[in-house]
């Protein structure tokens, strides 16, 4: 093999690793948020919202299955969706740190959902045109579901924000608490840059303006104030998490960790 060929092969391996990492990030964000929403089942303020949150969770876990299955194939070590979901530890999870934040009250759950919905809308819309046809197909499917999720979350954001003094205050407080995690949304690292250069994924900073416009429109409808610029960026997508992810994984992975290979 000539040095040029070696270089090309090495470059291709790096691209595959970046692609795998990128798909894993999308899948982990969907999975972790889906698990969080599942914690509401039986506890939501009303039966209709209980069903609503469970349905969002179902869509997200479904998207995670498609994405993690693909990530496992790209990785090429024989791991399937279940291995990736149930047998990795927190530092190996690549989800946005916002997704793992605790449910809090209903306002926190709605604001967290709405922020991730608005982020996913931008990302999936762009990915539907990816040169990676498998990722494009998953994104096009997820986009339709995310549009429906956003209708739910932005509707509740408006009802809470433009509701009573109490609901407004709680929604604003949730927004102030969670806003700092949005700094991670559009901050690219070498993985994002690599997949963008290959035409697989959009340029992240380019999504910030349309995201911002959507967020401002939804906040105006909800009579909520946009918090100041988030100054610190979490690195959930690089495996650096808040302390909450470990607890979430303990609940989610308990059965497979205790009884490896258990099926029912």
């Amino acid at each position: 093999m000539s040095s040029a060929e070696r270089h090309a092969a090495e470059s291709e391996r790096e691209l595959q690793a970046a692609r795998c990492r990128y798909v894993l990030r999308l899948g982990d964000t969907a999975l972790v948020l889906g698990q969080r929403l599942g914690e509401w089942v039986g506890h939501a303020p009303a039966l209709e919202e209980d069903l609503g949150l469970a349905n969002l969770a179902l869509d997200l876990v479904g998207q995670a299955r498609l994405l993690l299955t693909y990530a496992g194939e790209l990785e090429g070590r024989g791991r399937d969706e279940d291995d990736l979901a149930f047998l990795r530890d927190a530092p190996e999870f690549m989800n946005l740190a916002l997704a793992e934040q605790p449910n809090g009250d209903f306002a926190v759950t709605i604001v967290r959902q709405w922020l991730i919905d608005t982020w996913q809308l931008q990302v999936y819309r762009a990915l539907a045109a990816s040169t990676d046809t498998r990722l494009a197909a998953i994104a096009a499917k997820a986009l339709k579901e995310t549009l429906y999720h956003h209708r739910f979350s932005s509707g509740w954001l408006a009802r809470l924000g433009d509701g009573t003094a109490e609901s407004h205050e709680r929604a604003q407080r949730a927004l102030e608490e969670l806003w700092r995690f949005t700094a991670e949304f559009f901050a690219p690292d070498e993985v994002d840059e690599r997949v963008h250069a290959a035409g697989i994924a959009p340029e992240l900073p380019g999504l910030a303006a349309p995201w911002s416009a959507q967020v401002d429109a939804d906040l105006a409808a909800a009579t909520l104030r946009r918090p100041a610029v988030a100054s610190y960026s979490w690195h959930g997508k690089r495996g650096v998490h808040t302390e909450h992810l470990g607890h979430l994984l303990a609940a989610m992975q308990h059965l497979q960790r205790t009884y490896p290979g258990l099926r029912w």
Partner: protein
Amino acid sequence: MSTPGNSAAEEAERVLALLAAVPDPEIPVLSVVDLGVIRHVRRGTDGRLRVGLTPTYSGCPATEMIRAAVRGTLDRHGYPDAEIEEVLSPPWSSDWLSAAGRVKLRQFGIAPPVAPVSSPRRLWQATPVACPRCAGADTERISEFGSTPCKAHYRCRQCGEPFDYFKCL
């Protein structure tokens, strides 16, 4: 077993007719063909029959049951070597519900989707959903979501009955 001499189109028709007897596990008045989840029936270059199946929603728990039921029907009717292929693109749409399926849904008490999904924007348009029981147009949405991923929950203000609405997506 496929009958030699028949055209591919005739074979596809025959297989579709078999699959038209496979009910959706959650809305049994609909067949998987009515639901629009069977995307193609054709012979591959290797001669094997291929049946394309698409999920309605990414996380719909019925998908695996549908796959097993389609498998069973193919096995029992002479197509044990047929391959079921997952098709994700283009994504399933409620527009693919058959005309017969829409009638069956209404008779079953589920309001069919009101209009074509021409663009995602149509999610925000408030087209009235007629009550499947009394046909009254004065209805209200109780929840965006219902008992399965494909349904929302409504109530008729005229006859007072709650009902499911098959989401436009």
